């Protein structure tokens, strides 16, 4: 149990690695990831839960890391954008021009990874529901929609081939 204000060493599981890190109980997950561990892929956009730029996966579920305290994730598996290695979503983002400045991109990608893991055949209503938690200011979302459709489509094809 951590006490407010005191510094303590905890072990966090990030992208499959165990990382020991000294934190304050009052520290937000986003600050520990960025400032103490160098996972700068998770971005501050509002620090208020409004924009989704800071999204990471906690036990596979997309969470806004600005809305969690670091002690809440001890013992859980964190995945940041740095933990993805050439996934279909990343490739589709490139192929469909689903980003420009790229600042919102890690948050969107993590959200989509979480979404597609939970809903293997997500329909447009589900996708909309999930993705409305993030903001992109450069693209028109039409590109992102095409990227997600592409991933789902390829997934269906692979599925058929396996059957």
């Amino acid at each position: 149990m951590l006490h407010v204000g005191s510094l303590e060493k905890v072990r966090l599981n990030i992208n499959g690695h165990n990382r020991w890190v000294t934190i304050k109980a009052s520290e937000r997950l986003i600050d520990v990831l960025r400032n103490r561990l160098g996972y700068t892929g998770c971005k501050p956009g509002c620090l208020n839960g409004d924009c989704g730029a800071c999204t990471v996966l906690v036990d596979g579920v997309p969470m806004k890391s600005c809305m969690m305290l670091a002690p809440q994730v001890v013992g859980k598996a964190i995945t940041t954008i740095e933990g993805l290695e050439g996934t279909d979503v990343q490739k589709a983002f490139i192929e469909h021009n689903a980003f420009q400045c790229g600042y919102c991109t890690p948050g969107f990608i993590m959200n989509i990874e979480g979404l597609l893991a939970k809903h293997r055949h997500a329909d447009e209503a589900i996708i909309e529901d999930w993705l409305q938690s993030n903001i992109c200011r450069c693209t028109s979302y039409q590109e992102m929609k095409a990227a997600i459709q592409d991933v789902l489509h390829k997934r269906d094809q692979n599925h058929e081939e396996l059957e």
Partner: protein
Amino acid sequence: MLANIEAMMTLPSHKSLEEPSFLNHFSVHALPLEARWERLVIVISHVFKHTHLMTLFFWQKRVMRVEWVGQNVIRKDAWDKVTGRAKFAADTMTMDTLFAALVTSPYAHAKILQVDVSQAEAVPGVIKVVTGEDIDILVGEGIRDRPILAKDKVRYYGEPIAVVIADSPDTARLAAPFVKAAFLPLPVVNSPQEAIQAQAPLVHEHLDTYYTPKHLRPIPGTNIAHHVKIRKGEADKKLPSCPVIYESRVSFPPSDHCAMETRTATVEIRPDGTVCVESSSQVPFIIKSLFSELFDIPQDKIVVTTPLVGGGYGGKSAVQLEFIAYIASRAVGGQKVMLTNRREEDFVTSPVHIGLDATVTIGCDDTGRFIAMKISYLFDGGAYSDKAVDICRAAAIDCTGPYRVDHVFCDAYCLYTNHPYPTAFRGFGHPELTYAVERCIDGLAEKLAMDPTVLRKKNLIQPGDTTPTQSLLNKSRIGNLTACLEKVKALIRWDEGDRIETENHTIRAKGVSCFWKTSNIGPNVSSGALLVFNKDGTVHLDCGVVEIGTGSRSVLAQIAAERLGIDVKDIHVDMTIKTTTTPEHYKTVASRGLWMAGRAVLRAADDALSQLFQIASQVLRVSPDDLRAEGGFIFYKHEPRKRLSFRELAHGYRYPNGNTIGGQVIGRGSFVLPKLTFLDPDTGKGDPGPDWTVGAEAVEVEFNPKDDTYKILRAACVIDAGTIINPMYAEGQVRGGMHMGLSFASREGFVFTKDGIVMNNQFRTYKVLRYGENPEYLVDFVQTPSMETAYGLRGIGEHGVIGMPAALAASLSKASGVFINELPIIPELIWRLKRGR
């Protein structure tokens, strides 16, 4: 992952000339003469089926050639951006960094009685607190009217009054509220309309004491920061006698850019006086020159670094936090200080998107031909005039929209108010002026009982016409707007009707808007490029265009690859700009990235080629004139087998015995916009920009008359983009612009209390379009090559945004039956207008 990267790099379909569509690629006219001739030979070779020997030679040669202009080459920062490796300004934190937090004003207009920093300085971890009292200079890009931190009085809600420097971001933030300031509230100027009244409170009492550049004309004793006059023909005489006259007003409040990356500046002052600035900025070179002028530092002692920028849209073209971080660093002995905006500060403390009150009167004949226009623009210049004065000028220059009007009378005022101060926003005065003019045209069309597209078409500006500033247009300067309008009508299916009542008791309605824009940048600004060769013949491209999301730095590599005749994969582009080594590009604004840097890159490529030819000519013992470059080789044109690779030449050629000639090949090029002039202060006559990008847009909505809600179904845009270098990114830019325009028009804008306090400075209360709220976007192009630019391209970065507010308002006016002339168009506005409130 490496394998993936490889796979992605080959994504573009390298079209060989065997593809029959190759000629459609881009217009032959856009090519240099020699290339045109070669292309002609290929055409002939098609015709004669390669029977002629010489043709055969060219044919084979050209088949090897990859064309990079017109290809969807993947941007160079793509993999960094989807893996989180891309670094933005706030991502690099070093152990020696101190952190700053702003203390901001809770009032829009108030006298500062006292600022007490003692409690804040007592917070453990706080190193220093700096206030306006500690600084004695005023800053501003034009008129120097702004204290770096407020002094004596505050002029807008959110204005910085002090900065706390501490050993961690949290401590700085924690201590900020302990800075205790006492204020005496003053009467507030809450709109440009109020500002121009004779009895209005003054935002700046000492306007006459500020340093003011010659071309700006503030009027002391008033709230007028600048006044631009356009006088063409005899509008005041002609207008009253026009057979048909229509007048309309529009008004909208300031809003925000909302780049997802909030602004950041880090400053360190080295022991030898060198000032190092790292900033999320669209204007690193302006930071350098302003620092030099204001703080009297030689330019060689200023190093500005700008990594990838997380969205700009004009908002990061203002210099503000950099000054504060510099003052902060100076106060702590030059230690490195990082200042990052919270979202709430990014909304209101840093510069915003300008607001406008406008009145437009059009006089035309019975057939709808425009005769005269009278226009008044009252821009909400906010508390400080920084860029607002130039936005005001830009709107005046193109005040009529893209129409032929022989008699123009325009007064554009930039007014001080107690609102957050504006800076450039995508379109720079044009989405604003377009809203005012296009609404008036729609009103006029209704009065004339004419189809609004027919009325527009009748009046579209053409080659041979002159602009409001009396610039004479030709085809290269103005492109083909008629074709854009026709195409956009087809895309939106205009002819099926612009108002259709559906079975569900909703109304589907459409609206259109035309637009134009020139660049409005100084007549003497330049853009440079460097191509530095590696030993293996690969090339490093550097230029001063900031990567703010547009992909320009990558597209410039396509231009270089095309000219050098090498694979774009062999051109490396760094995304970070460092003003000590990167050639200057004035500002990454005004859709001038590819326009100007494209020319600089062509020159750099030609310079590099001439160096390669020089070395090769000695080795091959032929004249440099008889050499050609293709596929990474320099060869003798009459005997192509006599050739040397770039690799053999890039760092000088070494003979078998060790003798070496030539050295590293470094191509350099720079470019200045030719023949621009200042404007005449009394009539506005002059040449403000090199060309106008034109286009037409349309929106279709489904409106529910019961509750005044609506859904935007489709939005279309057709731009005359000249030659398109990278179609995928060009379309993406345009769609992104349209999206931003619709978001602005449908829901954005600051809500002020009567005391000038901004009520919505968070994404919870300031709404932007989210995923799925967007319509279907339809984008197409007309391609009239520019004669001035690399391969005939045109600037298109901003333009998608320009006509969207007007087109949305037109469609909703049609649907609801009320004339919508405000923004944002939320259902409550329609409800209010319907009831005449």
